[in-house]
């Protein structure tokens, strides 16, 4: 590869420079590759494991199977416990996309109020909201459960989604508030002079400028909702309504036959949507950071 590079380089004077840089560059790349190998080892092991027989998976450190099989993947088409795998994926997607929409709308609206509007008790309310970050999830678990049960919402997706539409995720509100505070005040003032109300300023001025914050929130919300286990575990009572994270747990129990192969194959398939979502949006993330240099 380096030979090719020297061939292309036209100026003979740069040859010396490359020779000087070569050992350093080589060490740099080898070092990176070594670290990458360590980091990627578990991932490669899982990929290799998904082609092993169930009894060969656990306790074996071999990266690749001696004789690969695809049964783990083909068996997924039979479904788990009389439920087709696609059901879990549809349910999870529904929840994840529903959460993203909810967070984007509700948290940005709330953040706009905190960042751009002066009203009585703003600082107190903001502090209280930040305070909710300190509440451990387990403290809220049972009271929330009782609340939703009294509203007859158990075994629906409402308990898992409702909060997301009411801006209860203080972290994302905080993130957006911080972002909006950094937007130059002159922009809203100019808009106001042109006759814009709050809704218009929010929609046409602030939201487009907040794109990096929105996309960060969207990515995290999607991943959190996709991976959420405790919420769906507590609130959903029918396997037909289960999400992927619950479905993955159906393969193995200490008391009986364990299907590790099916579990690993499905966990890889379950990674794909998250990966796709991240890849699709990370471009905007970097893009957004580059263009928001406007504030100077």
């Amino acid at each position, binding site marked *: 590869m380096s030979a090719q590079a020297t061939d292309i380089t036209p100026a003979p004077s740069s040859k010396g420079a490359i020779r000087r840089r070569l050992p350093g560059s080589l060490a740099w790349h080898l070092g990176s590759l070594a670290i990458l190998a360590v980091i990627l080892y578990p991932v490669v092991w899982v990929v290799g494991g998904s082609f092993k027989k*169930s*009894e060969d998976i*656990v*306790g074996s450190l071999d990266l690749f199977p001696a004789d690969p099989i695809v049964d783990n993947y083909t068996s997924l088409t039979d479904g*788990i*416990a*009389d439920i087709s795998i696609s059901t879990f994926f549809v349910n999870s997607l529904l929840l994840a996309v529903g959460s993203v929409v909810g967070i984007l709308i509700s948290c940005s609206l709330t953040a706009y109020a905190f960042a751009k509007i002066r009203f009585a008790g703003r600082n107190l309310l903001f502090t209280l909201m930040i305070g909710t970050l300190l509440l451990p999830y387990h403290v809220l*678990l*049972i009271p929330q*459960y*009782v609340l939703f*049960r009294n509203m007859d919402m*158990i075994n629906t997706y409402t308990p898992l989604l409702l909060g997301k539409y009411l801006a209860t995720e203080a972290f994302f509100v905080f993130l957006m508030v911080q972002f909006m505070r950094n937007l130059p005040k002159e922009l809203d003032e100019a808009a106001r002079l042109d006759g814009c109300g709050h809704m218009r300023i929010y929609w046409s001025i602030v939201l487009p400028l907040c794109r990096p914050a929105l996309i960060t929130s969207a990515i995290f919300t999607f991943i959190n909702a996709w991976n959420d286990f*405790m919420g769906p*575990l*507590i609130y959903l*009572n*029918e*396997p037909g309504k289960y999400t992927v994270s*619950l479905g993955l*747990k*159906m*393969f*193995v*129990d*200490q*008391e*009986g*036959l*364990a*299907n590790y192969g*099916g579990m690993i194959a499905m966990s890889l398939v379950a990674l794909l949507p998250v990966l796709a979502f991240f890849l699709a949006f990370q471009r905007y993330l970097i893009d957004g950071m580059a263009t928001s240099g406007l504030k100077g």
Partner: protein
Amino acid sequence: MQQGRDAERVTGRRTVLKAAGASLAVAGLGATATACGGGSGSGDGTVTIRYSWWGAEDRAERINKTIDLFEKKYPKIKVKTDFQPYGDFWKKFNTQASGGNPPDVFQNAIGFLRKYDAKNVLLDLSEQVKAGNLRMEGFRAGLEKFGEIDGKLLGVPVGSNSMALVIDKPVYTRAGAKPEMGWTWDDFDEAMKNIRDRTGRAGDSGMYGVMYLYDLYLRQNGKAFFTKEGLGFTEADLTQWWTKAEKGVKSGLFANAKKVVQVKPKSALSAELAGSEFTWDNFTVRYTSEGKSEYGLAPIPTTDGKRTGQYLGSLMLSASRRTQHPKEVAQFIDFMVHDPEVAKIMGYDRGVPATQVQYDAYTPTDPVNKAIAAYEESLVEAGVLETITPHPNGADVCEAAFLRIAEEMALGKRSVDDAVKQFFTESKTALAG
């Protein structure tokens, strides 16, 4: 061998299908019978009950089939199921029970009976027995009393199991160890040594952390792990038990705890770290599916050459006190423990069927389940079965703490004295609640 097992599984499915077909006719008869005797139902519309249990997909498929049978026999009752692995099941159950919304009927174990009775979660089923919706006759070996606490019937056993020593047969043969009914702890220690010396493997995977085994050891000596209120042994007893364990781990009689942790969730026995492991006899299925060797069941070592201290344990079906449909729940439990077709579908998945009718209905054909049946029969023949001692409120927490602290001791994170103290502190808190 693997192929043989696969074939077995296929034929298993076929017989299940046949059984389902045959039972259609039976269910038809049953339906007319209930229609004649009926009139007590609400009349309008069907009743839906929620049934939760722990397990994985294999159990789920079996249970779904038994529910199909039930719904055919009782067309006015619909059953909705919900299942998780053991740990997650109890997390969910706890939240739901605290939130006043537990499932109508659920799988239960002995360690949880007093705990949820104290929290007023469990329904006393004896009224349903009096009303004739639930028959408590025909249980094997006195199991009908198993779920009874202070005169209340809080759980109905579905399948019995008992502690056993699961052994790697070729390893035991190579070591020349022959475990027989009535063998003593000295014989056991001798076997451990021979396995270590002749096969290069540890003898046992970690018997010191198994609460139910220590319970048997204590019972052999006239004590028990639990009394009605608390622990039935002293710090000195446990120090003796764990000192022996620590020596065993250091000298390689028991498997290296670090390696045992590393191969989890696989068991040390199927990972070929140890030659044997103490566990419930119906878990043997697990080893065969995980490991490559041939596994067998050996009796529990004794102190005096006679008493093993064993009793039949059992999973149970319990009902929730908040259920709106106690009668339907009772009918459901009755069907699940007495119907012979259910036994043919479930096999030994939750232990050897608890009622004689179900026990007779299913004859195992594969070596693993045959071995389980033979083992339980040998216990009855040897006359070693005794009655179970009570499990107080908090027993489940003690069991988990016992396992965890024993493991920490084996890993060298705690000294024996420290481990014993820690266990007594934790269990006192748990049992006070």
